[in-house]
């Protein structure tokens, strides 16, 4: 019995060691007990969840790209473009479902092109998706003429803003997509092959895995998820804002890595990415509640990110030396 408790304790420590973001979350929750704020209210948690949702959906897609040793920096622009396309098609009188599907497909197309350039032309994912992000941002600016666009159909904003048994719709979408990617990674041969080729591309190729198609599909999905998030974000604010996606790619890729999906490839997953995104938004939310100046907020956020990632790397380094 005693042994069991010890083993459990060791296991818990091990998990905490691997998931420093969880520790950060716990610390924030504990610290927030003391100041007198609205942090512990249903309204705040609901807000927090809504803010996390779209970013988490993007992060689930980016997780796929990072597992196969890539990354995707075009997701912010894709998100913005998809939102604008959905609203503009809707305003032109198109059926709402069709408009949304086309908007989401626009993201798949960007992902398809990203994937082609990375897989077949062997371009570096980082720089190609960065460039693609600028390109897509340009498309979004041209389409919207650099102005905010709003949907005339009031039903459009209901997609994200209605409740579903008390859960904000947008959060429900996040859960659905999270489960989807989770299942994809855990139980399908696509998922397994993705981990394999991220872990060791040569080995995967030599084992007869269709490495090109698998990696390509990962990027198509990443683009698609960014577009889904874009439609939801547009619905949430009933507006497509052409420059809203600027800081999203870095934040999302960063969140994914904080969660434990390493740029080295082959590891990570949906729960990790969610935790990584969640900790960023939780910290922001908590700091706003206390009334910390936005400039200082940025500083603190940066400190947390650097601390978590360097501690993780330190742990990996020690583990390597121990062998």
């Amino acid at each position: 019995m005693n042994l069991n408790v010890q083993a459990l304790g060791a296991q818990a420590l091990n998990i905490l060691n691997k998931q420093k973001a969880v520790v950060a979350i716990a610390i924030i929750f504990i610290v927030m007990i003391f100041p007198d704020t609205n942090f512990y209210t249903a309204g705040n948690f609901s807000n927090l969840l809504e803010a996390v949702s779209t970013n988490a959906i993007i992060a689930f897609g980016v997780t796929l790209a990072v597992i196969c040793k890539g990354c995707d920096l075009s997701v912010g622009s894709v998100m913005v473009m998809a939102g604008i396309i959905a609203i503009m098609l809707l305003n032109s009188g198109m059926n709402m479902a069709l408009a949304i599907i086309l908007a989401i497909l626009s993201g798949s197309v960007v992902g398809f092109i990203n994937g082609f350039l990375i897989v077949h032309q062997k371009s570096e994912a980082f720089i190609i998706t960065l460039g693609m992000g600028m390109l897509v941002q340009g498309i979004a600016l041209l389409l919207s003429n650099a102005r905010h666009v709003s949907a005339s159909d009031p039903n459009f904003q209901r997609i994200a803003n209605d409740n579903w048994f008390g859960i904000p719709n947008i959060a429900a979408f996040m859960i659905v997509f999270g489960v989807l990617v989770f299942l994809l990674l855990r139980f399908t041969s696509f998922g397994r092959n993705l981990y394999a080729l991220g872990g060791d591309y040569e080995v995967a190729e030599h084992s007869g895995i269709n490495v090109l198609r698998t990696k390509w599909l990962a990027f198509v999905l990443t683009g698609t998820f960014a577009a889904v998030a874009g439609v939801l974000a547009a619905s949430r604010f009933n507006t497509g804002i052409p420059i809203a996606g600027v800081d999203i790619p870095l934040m999302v890729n960063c969140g994914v890595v904080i969660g434990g999906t390493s740029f080295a490839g082959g590891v990570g997953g949906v729960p990790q990415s969610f935790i990584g995104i969640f900790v960023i938004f939780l910290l922001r939310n908590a700091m706003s509640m206390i009334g910390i100046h936005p400039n200082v907020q940025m500083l603190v956020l940066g400190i947390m990110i650097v601390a978590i990632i360097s501690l993780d790397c330190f742990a990996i380094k020690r583990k390597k030396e121990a062998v």
Partner: protein
Amino acid sequence: MNNNDVILSVQNVNKSFPGVRALSDASITVRKGTVHAVVGENGAGKSTLMKILSGVYTKDSGTVVFDGETIEHTTPIQSIRRGLSIIYQEFNLVNTLTVGENIFLGRYSEMKGMRNMHKQARTLLDSIGSTIDTYRLVSDLSAAEKQMVEISKALSFNSKLIIMDEPSSSLTADELTQLFTLINDLRSKGVTIIYISHKLDEIFELCDIVTIVRDGQVIDTKPIDHLTRGEMIAKMIGREIENEFPSRPLVTYNKVVMEVKTINTRKLKDISFELKKGEILGFVGLVGAGRTEIVRAIYGADKAGELKILMNGSPVKIRKPRDGKHAGIGLLPEDRKLEGLVLPFSVQSNIVMSSLENISKFGFINSSKEKEIAERQIKSLSIKTPSPHARVKTLSGGNQQKCIMGRWLEINPDILILDEPTRGIDVGTKYEIYLLIKTLVENGSSVIMISSELPEVLAMSNRVLTICEGRISGEFNPEVDSAHDIMDAAIG
């Protein structure tokens, strides 16, 4: 022998790696101003010894005296500064820097400016009769030119002893003559050279003294004119083939399963051969002779221009490993850690990697079948693992190798290519792997086996092809032909 004559004295040096005794009681004495050859089969311990001298490895015991100074612990940079340089086969140069920068890499502050550095590099290159522009990028140089840069680098440290590891492997005949002239010139200036090579002709032409290494032991050191080529080969092969192999399986089918027609690549010339059903075909050759390249081309791991392969009489197109797999070919790669296993994955995941599509429906993996496969292979190959979910990197080399074999046995290929299947594996497990190979061919598969251990190939194969400098240099029946003749054909 006068003690002042000795530049390097190695006495009773031992070195072990986990599971392998790489050097036991190795002793070599190298005299000043000689070209001293070190020969031996692959894995005999030559490289280990050189890496101990250069400070890459630390010896377990024994003494090393270099230039009158006893050396206990050393690092590569300390060795170089002491005057002991090593030039590796694959060169140690930064491709994106210029020739001059490479020669004085890490010593810019001693150079007093870039212009002076290039001037000194020029002097060095001139001294060995090379006209390479010091401002050229190393990536633009030919192999021979890179070698010149390496030699200049060694000389810039006033090296007294230069170890050359297979220096001729990437040189043309003319370049080789130039290298020999240079080495003779260095010798006359009192620089000592340790020359490691498989090519016996070169050794007879160039060297003064030869040391033969086998199985981590120094077998003999003799002046070159006291040895014949035949004696040298006999000492290199050494050990008799003992009872460490199962009886040779017989080829009972008379059907050609694969016909390879003329592979021609940059490295391979006119490779064509047949493989019968149920046959074990051995490839014998030195490392770098093209053995691995042949099987990689067949499996689709390397791009080989026009590749004509007939499987069971009908032509197949193989452009990538996936095509190879679908054509019924499996490859157990040479480097199991780099090319064979996803190390962070579990034993189970590594085993089922190639059969996922057979056990998935609509992309979803049938996890009970997955478990079944893993358990079946773990049992039938007696893979020693605490559980199917243990990380594959925690297993011993032999058991890791069995995991890769299990992966291929599960999809039951017509042809299994084994590239160094027993490298770094202990004797007991080796025997198990031999038995597996035997069972495999008795069940109608065919095997191509590459191994640097000659006794192994000779004992297991029904037929042996020798590969030398990218060509098939001979075909032998290991039951009739002598190991000596086969080795001779492989060395060329």
